[in-house]
């Protein structure tokens, strides 16, 4: 009964989305105000129905209603309540419903935080979001309905994939989807602006906070995903260049470019066409990510659900949404005039360089992700492009970004005084590299050229970021007054760029100095790795709610300072696949990581031991970027700007391009 209610609510949501997607758009085109007013109530109603639908599915999980196929496949009566709820988005159908729900949430957010936006513009924005929602809801109802009944009902379910029975993985998808779907707001703004011909700096200012918030969620989702892969997959790595990881990384890169180019469009009225294109790209890549993950076109360790029929549907949807918006772009963009003039050494051009690098990076990832598919499509065999390709291509593209991110904001708009910038950094630059290289040489035995260069760059990035802030603060005379005078966006930029430096430090040091050993260990054996002595005391059997496990007991010592680690090898009762639960002793300077491999004779085990210096810094960098994004989004300017858009809808797009 509950499930049928959920199904009906889903159909109602589709009807609301249809209303939201058609009338306001037609109303905006024809100037019929009543039609335009449909947008807000329809959007809110759509969200309510989606919420009801989602709660119904959650209730089916909580009450163990195994007559639902989706519940039967992804839950079990022994599964703890927390994971039964998280199992709602543990597989394809439910995660698509979550996608739709989150789109509804963003829609409602737009209806609430847009009170003083021009009616026509808002109608278009909501309509476009409604049309996207129509596509997703049709997809769910026709190819991936989570409310499908199973007759006769099984007595118990097949349980949730053990990989997903973990905190990180329960919050990772909602975060990632908040980011993916959040980019639909920036997309809808861009398309609405193209349609209405109001591609101006007000439009850019309006898009910025939405883009920032979506970017924050995306960053958060990716960071969580990386952290999860590290401790749950038991391989000790934090990034695998897996197609599904790439699928989330590409929109992130483009969204990062978008944040920067929106700044130029808002402040200087330049790059308008380019910014619109980036907004379209960012959301398109989110959809492409969904397509790649859900269609089974690419096989991957993450591909928990794949089905060609669904793939075809998503592909058609993708073609309509992206193709349609690019068609609109090709028709309207030639009429966009950039009025701003700027010199070669200007912040405009530096940000353009940033954009080119980020988009090229995203493009090369796309190429690497699709290349195996191209070969397969041409009948040249199945291959896979691995980390070697990505690392080789990525490093040279990222290097200039790391070098310039810190001083970028020292460059003035229009024309920068190079000599003044040089005076500010002429000591800082060599000093930073001296510190970095010195640190690498003294503190870390066995540093090679790459480590020194990397560490030096990280120090330079941090130092130049702080120097930029200091230069602004200094203008106010006293430093307290100076610090107070800075806007949240300045702090946001500073913190995010510092995050980049922290991230780079983590990547460089953990990449170079991680040590690992795969060894056979019998009880009372000890192994020394990087100065740490790992002693094995054997395993014992422990029982969890829906699994049994062999738990190993290890003691790790270094210079009298010891701690205990208890990794597990779990066997889940229903799904029966063995799972490695690594034991990690986290620390600012290093992680100790022990994973049980396979049992061997006489109580011995094959064991993987890792010592990973500075690995936490990788995710700390992500956290700082998140904090920076939030700071920047909290800037009062964005809230004030709302009124001005309504008053002055300046037009910079000629409807009939010459």
């Amino acid at each position, binding site marked *: 009964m509950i499930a049928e209610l959920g199904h009906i609510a889903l159909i109602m949501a589709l009807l609301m989305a249809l209303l939201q997607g058609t009338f306001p758009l037609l109303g905006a085109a024809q100037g019929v105000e009543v039609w335009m007013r449909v947008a807000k109530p329809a959007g809110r109603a759509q969200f309510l129905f989606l919420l009801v639908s989602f709660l119904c599915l959650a209730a089916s999980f909580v009450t163990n209603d195994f007559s639902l196929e989706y519940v039967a496949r992804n839950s079990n009566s022994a599964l703890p309540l927390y994971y039964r709820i998280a199992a709602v988005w543990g597989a394809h159908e439910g995660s698509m419903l979550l996608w739709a729900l989150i789109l509804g949430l963003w829609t409602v957010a737009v209806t609430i935080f847009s009170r003083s936006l021009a009616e026509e513009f808002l109608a278009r924005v909501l309509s476009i979001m409604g049309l996207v929602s129509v596509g997703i809801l049709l997809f769910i109802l026709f190819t991936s309905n989570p409310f499908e009944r199973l007759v*006769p009902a099984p007595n118990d379910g097949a349980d949730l994939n053990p990989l997903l029975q973990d905190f990180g993985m329960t919050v990772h998808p909602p975060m990632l989807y908040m980011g993916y779907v959040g980019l639909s707001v920036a997309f809808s703004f861009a398309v609405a602006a193209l349609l209405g011909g109001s591609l101006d700096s007000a439009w850019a200012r309006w898009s910025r906070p939405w883009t920032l918030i979506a970017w924050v969620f995306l960053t958060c989702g990716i960071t969580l995903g990386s952290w999860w892969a590290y401790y749950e997959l038991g391989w000790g790595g934090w990034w695998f260049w897996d197609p599904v990881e790439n699928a989330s990384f590409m929109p992130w890169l483009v969204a990062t470019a978008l944040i920067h180019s929106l700044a130029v469009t808002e402040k200087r009225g330049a790059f308008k066409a380019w910014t619109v294109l980036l907004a379209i790209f960012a959301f398109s890549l989110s959809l492409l990510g969904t397509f790649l993950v859900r269609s089974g076109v690419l096989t991957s360790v993450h591909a928990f659900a794949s089905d060609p029929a669904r793939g075809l549907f998503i592909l058609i949807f993708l073609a309509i949404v992206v193709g349609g918006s690019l068609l609109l772009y090709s028709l309207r963009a030639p009429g966009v005039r950039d009025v701003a003039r700027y010199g070669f050494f200007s912040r405009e051009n530096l940000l353009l360089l940033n954009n080119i690098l980020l988009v090229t990076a995203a493009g090369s990832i796309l190429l690497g992700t699709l290349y195996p598919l191209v070969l397969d499509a041409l009948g040249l065999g199945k291959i896979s492009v691995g980390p070697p390709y990505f690392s080789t291509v990525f490093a040279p593209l990222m290097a200039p970004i790391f070098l310039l991110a810190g001083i970028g904001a020292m460059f003035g708009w229009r024309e920068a005084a190079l000599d003044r910038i040089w005076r500010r950094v002429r000591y800082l630059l060599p000093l930073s590299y001296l510190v970095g290289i010195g640190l690498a040489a003294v503190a870390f035995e066995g540093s090679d050229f790459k480590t020194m260069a990397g560490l030096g760059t990280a120090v330079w990035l941090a130092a130049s970021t702080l120097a930029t802030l200091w230069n602004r603060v200094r203008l106010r005379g006293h430093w307290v007054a100076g610090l107070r005078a800075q806007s949240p966006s300045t702090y946001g930029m500073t913190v995010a760029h510092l995050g980049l430096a922290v991230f780079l430090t983590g990547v460089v040091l953990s990449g170079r100095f991680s040590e690992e050993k795969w060894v056979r260990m019998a009880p009372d054996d000890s192994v020394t790795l990087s100065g740490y002595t790992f002693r094995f005391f054997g395993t014992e059997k422990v029982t969890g709610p829906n699994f049994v496990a062999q738990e190993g007991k290890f003691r790790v010592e270094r210079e009298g300072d010891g701690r205990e680690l208890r990794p597990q090898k779990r066997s889940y009762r229903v799904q*029966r696949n063995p799972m490695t639960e690594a034991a990690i002793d986290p620390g600012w300077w290093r992680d100790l990581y022990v994973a049980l491999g396979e049992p061997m004779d006489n109580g011995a085990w094959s064991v993987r031991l890792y010592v990973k210096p500075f690995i936490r810094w990788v995710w700390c960098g992500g956290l700082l970027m998140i904090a920076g994004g939030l700071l920047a989004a909290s800037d009062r300017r964005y809230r004030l700007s709302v009124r001005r858009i309504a008053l002055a809808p300046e037009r910079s797009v000629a409807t009939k391009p010459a």
Partner: protein
Amino acid sequence: MTTSRMRFALPLLVFALLVALLAVGLRLDPREVPSPLIGKPAPGFSLPQVAAAEQRLSLADLKGQVFLLNVWASWCLSCREEHPLLLELAKRGIVPIYGLNYKDERETAQAWLKRFGDPYRASAFDADGRIGIEWGVYGVPETFVVDKQGLIRYKQTGPITPEVLEKKILPLVRQLQEAA
């Protein structure tokens, strides 16, 4: 169209290419995962039957003939999709079909066969999925074609479609039956 306008249409053209590529990619069958067992002897088993626990079904009983082994379960929805096809095939009597009931419960499996019809000469009851693992089953349904020598010749992952049946499985079965 002027060159400057072409510039703005470029993203659209690139995207069109991408869609074409993805469309081709979709037509490639991701289920065509080469099984390492093709051409190898079918892993042996001896299991109680679904119909009655005291009767057993073992691979040795099946040797000397070409047969299909269909992995199914009552909890599997895709199995229902292919089920009418299997019933039809059983009626035509071209090739015997045996079932491997995978990670299921006896009563529900029996009820399922009663309800939807039973195309199998017999179904082996693989409650803990051990034999399934040996046969390299990674999803239900799967169907294996085994020849007279007991070698696995073909594996269909996912439900059998009429197309696969007519174009791949049946021609292969006929060819294997004619072989000595």
